[in-house]
């Protein structure tokens, strides 16, 4: 069984950050990078399926510059077998639909039995890349999966789709398929120090757009939008900030609670 897991190294902003003035963006010095929270769960699910099957391969794929290398290494350290990183400067402003187009070309080369994506990334929060990727690959898909059981023979899977308000839909889907995985579906493992060292020996291939038969024009055409501007959000009046020592603010909170609850 071959499972491809597209992952993303996400941008985490410092508490203090500046929005750039000359173009839409934020000061790169304020960005730290981390593996997307959802991807810990999609990778874990893939590893557990491979372990249950007794053989197979888990391939992690990421579209990103040097920072994405670290995220892929983290996945390899957890137990993924192989990594593929795709990068080209033309991808700098790629939106989820453009990324899906690029991922499609990379994933197609792998001919997987199953593709598992995170439901969303914690920075972009579009929840779009995975399902757009499924379309390009021609795969049936289910979004926001919180339970997955591989049926006997491996031709179908029974999945639980998480709906609003705690409702769950149970459904069956034929394989190969693409699922977007929700947090909480499993308990992601941590890599051991030894595994982190060994991960550096695992294959991690870097591909350019040309290697995938794409170019900047194809990426631009696939994009769903263009960023016009970026700004600090208008937070309205915001909260009244209570200041003082912990005991002073606790007293004030107690006062507010008692007043509101008696009213």
């Amino acid at each position, binding site marked *: 069984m071959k499972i491809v897991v597209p992952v993303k190294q996400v941008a985490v902003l410092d508490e203090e950050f500046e929005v750039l003035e000359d173009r839409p963006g934020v000061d790169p010095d304020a960005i730290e990078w981390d593996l997307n929270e959802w991807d810990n769960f999609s990778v874990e699910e893939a590893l557990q399926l491979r372990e249950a099957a007794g053989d197979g391969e888990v391939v992690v794929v990421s579209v990103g510059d040097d920072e994405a290398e670290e995220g892929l290494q983290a996945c390899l350290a957890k137990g993924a077998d192989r990594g593929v990183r795709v990068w080209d400067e033309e991808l700098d402003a790629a939106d989820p639909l453009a990324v899906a187009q690029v991922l499609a070309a990379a994933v197609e080369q792998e001919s997987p039995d199953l593709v598992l994506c995170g439901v969303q990334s914690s920075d972009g929060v*579009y929840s779009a890349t995975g399902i757009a990727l499924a379309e390009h690959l021609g795969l049936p898909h289910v979004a926001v999966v919180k339970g997955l059981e591989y049926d006997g023979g491996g031709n179908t899977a029974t999945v639980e*789709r998480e709906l609003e308000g705690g409702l769950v839909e149970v459904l069956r889907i034929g394989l190969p398929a693409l699922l977007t995985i929700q947090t909480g579906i499993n308990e992601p493992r941590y890599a051991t120090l030894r595994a982190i060292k060994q991960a550096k020996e695992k294959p991690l291939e870097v591909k350019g757009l040309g290697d995938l038969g794409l170019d900047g024009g194809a990426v631009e055409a696939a994009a769903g939008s263009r960023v016009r*501007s*970026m700004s600090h959000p*208008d937070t309205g009046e*915001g*909260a009244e900030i209570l200041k003082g020592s912990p005991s002073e*603010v606790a007293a004030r909170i107690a006062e507010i609670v008692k007043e509101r609850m008696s009213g």
Partner: protein
Amino acid sequence: MSGVLVIAESRQGSLRDVSLELIGAAREVKEQAGGRLAVAVIGAGAGEHADALGADGVDEVLVVETPNEHFEPHVHAAAVEALIDEEEPTLVLAGHTIDSLGFAPALAARRGLGFASDVTRLAWDGGPVAVRGGYGGKVDVELDFPGKETVLLLLRAGAFPAVEGSGAARSRNVEVQAEPRSEHLGFREADTGDVDITKAEFLLSIGRGIEDKDALEQFEELADKMGATLSVSRPLVDAGWVPNARQVGQSGKTVKPKVYLALGISGAVQHLAGMQTAETIIAVNTDPEAPIFTVAHYGVVADLFDVADELAEQF
């Protein structure tokens, strides 16, 4: 290409609230988009909702009856695609909901549509302009869609005013051919547990900030002492520390207590959706930029344990 096409949403025989918000948003840009506003409702028994969707400003309700009883993403994508071919709208609006996440990105990719999800504001400048969060909601990003004949936007539930009352828009049935690629086996309600947090007037809500399962007991005791009901944000349910019945947010419960005291909850969009209409919101968090402070009435930038220890002395 002209006009706006709204994709209403229903589940288990009921129209979902976001449908009327989509119509509210559509009415605001209807004239700039070319004048016509059509609202489509897709599914088995879709016709039952036609009257409720015929609000003032809606020109026509399009009813697409499907053979599958429940939402199926591949059928839904095919139905909306057929409606786009027929209506040739400039703008298509659907909710940023779990169902939409299952079909809309696929359709956008298939047809090369302009696309954005989780849109919180909508304007017009020669074409649609959408505002959504970036970097996890820490910035506002304004998007436009040059060269796109049709733009599909998923609007955040609760971000646009719902229309009220139903008018007398005519309705029409539309036939669509589509094959499902997944099979519905059933619905399962989340375990209700022993508590109904939607009935509580005072919620003490804790999140990722408590860091350790062992800390739970302290907050159960604090809630008791304060006369509050304990609720939580998603990470504590994901970790298996607390049952789903106590979860506030999109995938948990929507609550509207008199007082919502949030300790160590940063306020992801999905959480805010479940509590932002509480009468009084008090938030304690170490990060002054935490999104929870944008909906809170009172905020404290501090370590939640320091405040919790002192709170215990006050009740």
